[in-house]
């Protein structure tokens, strides 16, 4: 049960997007740019960073929603997503992504925990400044999304498999436009 009155049937951040369209637009556009738009990190890598940070923040909705999207980008490899969440240093991912996940983890525990050595490690593995920048912004943005979702006590479907269908659509089409069911809930809220 959420802490405020939200539209029924829209889990996690989607109920919040329906509640406040003015803030939903920039938050969705930011997600689109960071996770799905053009970039030298693949969408799978960026979704793994978002999933890892959400798991560290213990946000059930976000880690399952974005973990399912990451798995879609990885041909259904749920196991790799799980490995990244539990022990990314030993997961079957590139050394560059490990270094970026280490930075993301530092941002999650507190921005000042990122030290020059963490940035050096990422650079040694070939990460560009833009990739390091975007990693930090993804991690920081997901700390916000995670706290937004949990701070209002939103509902999340308990079965991780139930996130797959929507994940396939997001992996293919991205985060824009705002989904039709959220837009419908926004419209019914704004009517007197």
């Amino acid at each position, binding site marked *: 049960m959420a802490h405020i009155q939200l539209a029924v049937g829209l889990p996690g951040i989607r109920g919040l997007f329906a509640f406040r369209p003015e803030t939903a637009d920039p938050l969705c556009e930011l997600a689109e740019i960071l996770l799905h738009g053009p970039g030298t990190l693949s969408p799978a890598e960026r979704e793994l960073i978002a999933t890892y940070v959400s798991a560290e923040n213990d946000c059930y909705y976000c880690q399952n929603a974005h973990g399912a999207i990451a798995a879609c980008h990885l041909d259904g490899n749920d196991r790799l997503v799980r490995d990244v969440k539990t022990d990314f240093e030993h997961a079957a991912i590139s050394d560059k992504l490990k270094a970026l996940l280490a930075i993301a983890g530092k941002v999650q525990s507190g921005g000042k925990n990122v030290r020059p050595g963490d940035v050096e490690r990422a650079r040694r593995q070939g990460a560009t400044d833009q990739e390091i*920048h975007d990693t930090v912004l993804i991690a920081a943005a997901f700390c916000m999304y995670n706290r937004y979702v949990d701070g209002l006590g939103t509902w999340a479907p308990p079965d991780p498999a139930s996130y797959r269908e929507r994940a396939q659509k997001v992996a293919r089409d991205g985060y824009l436009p705002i989904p039709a069911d959220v837009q419908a809930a926004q419209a019914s809220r704004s009517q007197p």
Partner: protein
Amino acid sequence: MKPIFLPEVESHPRPSPTTDLIRAAQSAGTEYPQIWHLFAYRPQATANLGAFTHEIMRGDCPLPAGLRELIAAFTSYGNDCPF
């Protein structure tokens, strides 16, 4: 001011209103908040953060703007972020 971790972010601002602010502060020799470099580096992404911030801080809401700034200041203090 100390350089930020990513020199490319500091040295490659894209055209944006924030870039003009940085140039003005630099030519006047005054210090400025280095979050400006982050806003100037990726304006397409950070414009959304600006729009979001404006909406929650100044948009239509029963909480007065002063109280909203107080909440932001209290949270930033809790996060040990002086700026």
